[in-house]
């Protein structure tokens, strides 16, 4: 992993080009087979979510009346009648439902991660860089919010302001940034006394500009790693609420709601209702964790 080019290659190309930190990270990431395989799997899931409905023979709200009343025998996965994943207990096509659920779940995960990146990084960077009393107050707020069992408060919010996907996003947004703020603050503390920051202060750069131009770019590596690991935990979070029937509402759905539907019908002989959503859930979460691990190995200098 040496940065100096060997004499031979230097002779051949004349201009020696240095490799940036990001190029190094890129190379390390693509050398990690589990992470690359996970990336491919995740891209497939994403394509499934985006274009799956064009493959489906049925609409996600359409009821196949021919199936009703005898779902455990004829409702299973079949290529002939176009229900690739079978039908659910009300005769709706499970393939189309899974496409829809995948969309909602991925959206929740990605929105949660994005909010955490924006709010958490800003919060942590400001608290860490400014320090003093500001730091104490800002981090005390984070501690306070973390010590509350947020799931209960979120359910309270969902009950009071009606259950809706928007409220779910708000709830996810309210909690997702807390961990990120702590991580960003810790990292800020370790870089704020470095020479380049000192140089910036000495040349008279303003504090907001130091934070945006010098601190935040140096947090990005660690922020990306934790954002990737946050996506699955946000998906688990949403699925938990939807499993209880307090999250997304019919006719909308998510992995959690679909798994719940499968679990409720375990005794009715429709194992595919549990199997397909569960497979999507588990495979995607695994992929996210492996990508996160790969990114950590590639970007986090601590673990090298």
């Amino acid at each position, binding site marked *: 992993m040496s940065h100096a080019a060997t004499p031979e290659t230097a002779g051949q190309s004349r201009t020696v080009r240095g490799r940036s930190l990001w190029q190094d990270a890129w190379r390390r990431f693509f050398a990690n087979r589990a992470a690359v395989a996970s990336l491919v799997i995740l891209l497939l899931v994403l394509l499934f979510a985006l274009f799956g409905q064009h493959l489906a023979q049925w609409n996600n709200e359409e009821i196949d009346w021919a199936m009703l009343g005898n779902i455990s025998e004829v409702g299973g996965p079949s290529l002939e009648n176009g229900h690739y994943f079978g039908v659910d207990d009300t005769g709706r096509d499970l393939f189309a439902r899974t496409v829809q659920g995948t969309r909602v779940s991925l959206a929740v995960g990605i929105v949660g991660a994005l909010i955490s990146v924006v709010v958490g990084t800003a919060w942590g960077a400001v608290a860490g860089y400014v320090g003093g009393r500001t730091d104490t107050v800002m981090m*005390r707020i984070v*501690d*306070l919010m973390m*010590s*509350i*069992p947020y*799931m*209960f*408060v979120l*359910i*309270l*919010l*969902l*009950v*009071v*302001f009606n259950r809706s996907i928007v409220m779910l996003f708000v709830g996810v947004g309210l909690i997702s940034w807390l961990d990120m703020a702590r991580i960003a603050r810790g990292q800020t503390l370790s870089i704020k006394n470095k020479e380049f920051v000192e140089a910036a202060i000495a040349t008279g750069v303003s504090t907001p500009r130091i934070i945006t131009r010098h601190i935040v770019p140096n947090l990005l590596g660690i922020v990306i790693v934790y954002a990737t690991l946050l996506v*699955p935990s946000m998906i*688990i979070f949403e*699925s*938990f609420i939807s*499993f*209880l*029937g*307090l999250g997304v509402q019919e006719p909308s759905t998510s992995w*959690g709601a679909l*798994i*719940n539907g*499968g*679990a409720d019908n*375990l*005794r009715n002989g429709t*194992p595919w209702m*549990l199997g397909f959503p*569960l497979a999507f*859930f*588990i495979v995607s*979460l*695994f992929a996210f*964790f492996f990508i996160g691990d790969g990114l950590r190995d590639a970007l986090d200098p601590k673990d090298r």
Partner: protein
Amino acid sequence: MTSFILKRLAIAVPTILLLIVFSFLLMNAAPGSPFATERGVPPEVLANLEAKYGLDKSLFDRMGIYIWNVVTQFDFGPSFKFKDRTVNDLIAQGFPVTLTYGTWSFVVAVLVGGTLGILAAVFHNSWLDYLAVGVSIGAQVLPNFVMAPILVLIFTLWLGWLPGGGWQGGQWQYLVMPVIALSTSYMASIARITRSSMLEVLNAGFIRTARAKGLPMRRVVLRHALKPALLPVISYLGPAFVGMITGSVLIDVFFSTGGIGQFFVNSALARDYSVIMGITILIGTLTVLFNLLVDVVYAWIDPKIRY
């Protein structure tokens, strides 16, 4: 030490009060009256009902009375939906159940996870280590709502060994699946944390010294390495507690165990605000107190922490 505990209490008490005020205001922001029915209630009846439940007073007064009752008598008021029962009745009925399998899950997660982590670190790169790492990676994607249906599928529907739900006064058959479903992912996290911190400690100088003077491995691990290795685990116990108490809601609903989680979800679906609030405050208080306990234990064990 006393001043440290007092300082933490000085943070804990306002947190709990804030939670009470927040839930109270939120409940009042909710649209609609709890007594509204489709047919409508005659105005005089409504006035009587409001007087009975104290809803005719001003918001501020009601909040004062509510907080006073909660703080001084642990009285969360009447349930709006279960006509003749108070929130306290519901909690008294459900809480022992939740506490029973919750405690079991916590103990299982800590003991099994901790043991697995220690063994994995001591026998680093052995099959045991790979097993522990494999289990802890696998269990990351097996949260309670995934474990529960899988367990029922295997042990109730295929093997027929265990009942698929119910409580029956907490007989062991009814405890097994809730405890496994609730503890698996935390057990995995504890195993992972213990393993990595144990590995770090085992590479430290004082462990090399202990081994160099000829102590047997068992003694090195138990007497010298265990205590410092468990510190990160202790700080994880707070989040684990929150996670499990949240997970208990799902266990109650899925296995019909009759704990407070079942009342919580039913009330959430029926908009029975006083029950939701009462349970939220109870859980919040327990969480804050547990975190306080974890902090104190941590400060007590780790000599590096000044208080």
